[in-house]
């Protein structure tokens, strides 16, 4: 753990340094309201002043289609398990998305461990960046306490004017600092700049919904039979947008894909969604979450209550993507407000 400074004028040189060594992905502007993580080779291609990307960094950690093994049935059932990896720098990751990868880490490290995920992530370098203001009205990061850095990065950049105050938290990060030669020692005025910025943030970021963090799981327990779920069920179209864009939704299906000769092929996993009608269906055809309200309620509880019991962690990071992408304009903050109001 060490702290250094990086002049903003050195950012192009830093990206150039990194891109010369491995693939760098960063937020890139798609259109007026949309950004995505994409490969860049220069600082100019990035948009570091961005609202959460359409898909979170999850798309690198657990790719939408991920080969688990290749098989050959020409003589019985033989196979070879594989992991697809690439060296990757994720540049400019918001604190909400860092928290999202921490949630995924917890799930895939829980026994029985997912070796595929755990090997892949060792090939990543994470460079986080601090938000100094809300992305937009959909974000609920202060409520989830994710507007401030809570680890999960190799290097973290905090904007203090002409410089970034840089927290280097791993050996991997330290190597970049040492070999790029672009960083400077911390000066006293920079410490002051950082604390002033954080003070300003205190005035900006306030819990977006009137509930204390520690009371959230109980709210969902007490409102399990709430009419709010039926209202959401009436609006939800089960498109699965909310689960696809969520940094902590990790449900998947496993599918075989034969090659043309039908003897060789691969088994891969693909993102699935608890919002799909078939998701909890069993062989006889019975579905255990047949109704949309039940699936919607399941998803909310899987963010705010169940993981608290299982992993001692809330799985909403406050990025606001589900509300931003909902076809039926189901809004997370409004939903929680409605639950609070109904419970009284």
């Amino acid at each position, binding site marked *: 753990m060490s702290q250094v400074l990086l002049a903003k004028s050195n950012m192009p040189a830093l990206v150039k340094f990194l891109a010369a060594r491995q693939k760098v992905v960063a937020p890139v502007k798609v259109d007026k309201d949309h950004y995505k993580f994409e490969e860049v080779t220069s600082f100019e291609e990035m948009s570091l002043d961005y609202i959460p990307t359409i898909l979170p960094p999850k798309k690198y950690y657990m790719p939408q289609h991920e080969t688990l093994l290749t098989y050959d049935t020409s003589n019985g059932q033989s196979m070879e398990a594989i*992991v697809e990896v690439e060296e990757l720098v994720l540049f400019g990751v918001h604190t909400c998305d860092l928290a999202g990868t921490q949630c995924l880490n917890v799930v895939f490290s829980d026994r029985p461990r997912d070796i595929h995920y755990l090997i892949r992530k060792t090939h990543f370098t994470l460079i986080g960046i601090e938000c100094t203001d809300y992305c937009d009205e959909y974000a609920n990061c202060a409520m989830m306490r994710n507007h401030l850095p809570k680890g999960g990065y190799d290097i973290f950049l905090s904007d203090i004017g002409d410089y970034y105050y840089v927290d280097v938290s791993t050996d991997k990060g330290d190597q970049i600092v040492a070999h790029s030669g672009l960083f400077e020692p911390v000066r006293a005025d920079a410490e002051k700049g950082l604390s002033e910025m954080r003070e300003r943030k205190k005035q900006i970021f306030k819990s977006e919904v009137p509930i204390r963090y520690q009371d959230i799981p109980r709210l969902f327990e007490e409102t399990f039979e709430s009419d709010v779920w039926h209202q959401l069920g009436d609006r939800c179209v089960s498109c699965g947008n909310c689960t696809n864009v969520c940094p902590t939704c990790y449900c998947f299906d496993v599918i075989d894909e034969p090659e043309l000769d039908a003897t060789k092929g691969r088994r891969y996993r693909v993102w699935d969604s608890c919002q799909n009608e078939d*998701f909890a269906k069993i062989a006889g055809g019975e579905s255990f979450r047949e109704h949309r309200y039940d699936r919607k309620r399941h998803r909310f509880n899987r963010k705010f209550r169940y993981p608290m*019991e299982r992993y001692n962690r809330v799985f909403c990071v406050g990025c606001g993507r589900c509300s931003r992408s909902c076809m039926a304009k189901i809004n997370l903050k409004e939903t929680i407000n409605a639950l609070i109001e109904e419970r009284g």
Partner: protein
Amino acid sequence: MERIHIHHSGYEIKQGRIVQIKELTAHEKLFRIVLPHGEILDQDPGQFVEVSLFGVGEAPISVCSSPTQFEDFELCVRKAGRFTEALHQLKVGDEIGIRGPFGVGFPIVPLEGNDVLLIAGGLGIAPLRSLIKFIIDNRRMFGKVSILLGCRDPQSMLFADELDDWARRIDLQFLCSIDKAAPEWGGHVGYINQLIPGVTLDPLKTFAVACGPPVMYRSVVDELLKKGFTDDRIYLSLERHMKCGLGKCGHCQIHDIYCCQDGPVFSYSKLKTMKGAI
């Protein structure tokens, strides 16, 4: 993208070989499987395996033989979809992929020294058979043992020859009921929960273990509670879509639990805290 070959992935299969196939009914077949190099499956009664056919897919199937049967294990498979239809096409000598065993099975340890009431509905007899055979092979470990079996009709009755044996044994009480009256059926007619009041037992020294379709559980649990069973002495095996078996994919999740890892067998005291579980 670089491909690294790995071992100890949770998705690696063992190459099981089919050594015997028995047609139990028009829809169910019993497969006897051996693992390579004489490896034993080492399962608990009530655990399941993921059965795989590359190019077709994978499905969770309960092991229906007892762990006291060391040399091989048995799977009872109902033809219910694309994957199980493909399994039904297989011949003796064919290979199938096996992952597991997975999950928490029937509560052997608490059961020891107690009377046991076993309740199976329909295909539920398959998983429960692993426990019944375990009990028969370790008969001294348990007190009075009663088996209640419910079937749609006599034609759908699985393991018919074994049922005759269980009915003849002096160390088991065996009762069977079919849902609707049928010609040449001299036994009970009605749903399985209706058999429960007639069984003589002491609920304070008896554990009830039930396995069957979801619709059966509500009525069975009601009868057991009426009979004086406490919640923690009732165990149920839940059917869910256990896709990965590793507590990750989410298909079998009920509230904060994954059936594939935390179950499929749960005490009713646990299940009643989870709305929608049964």
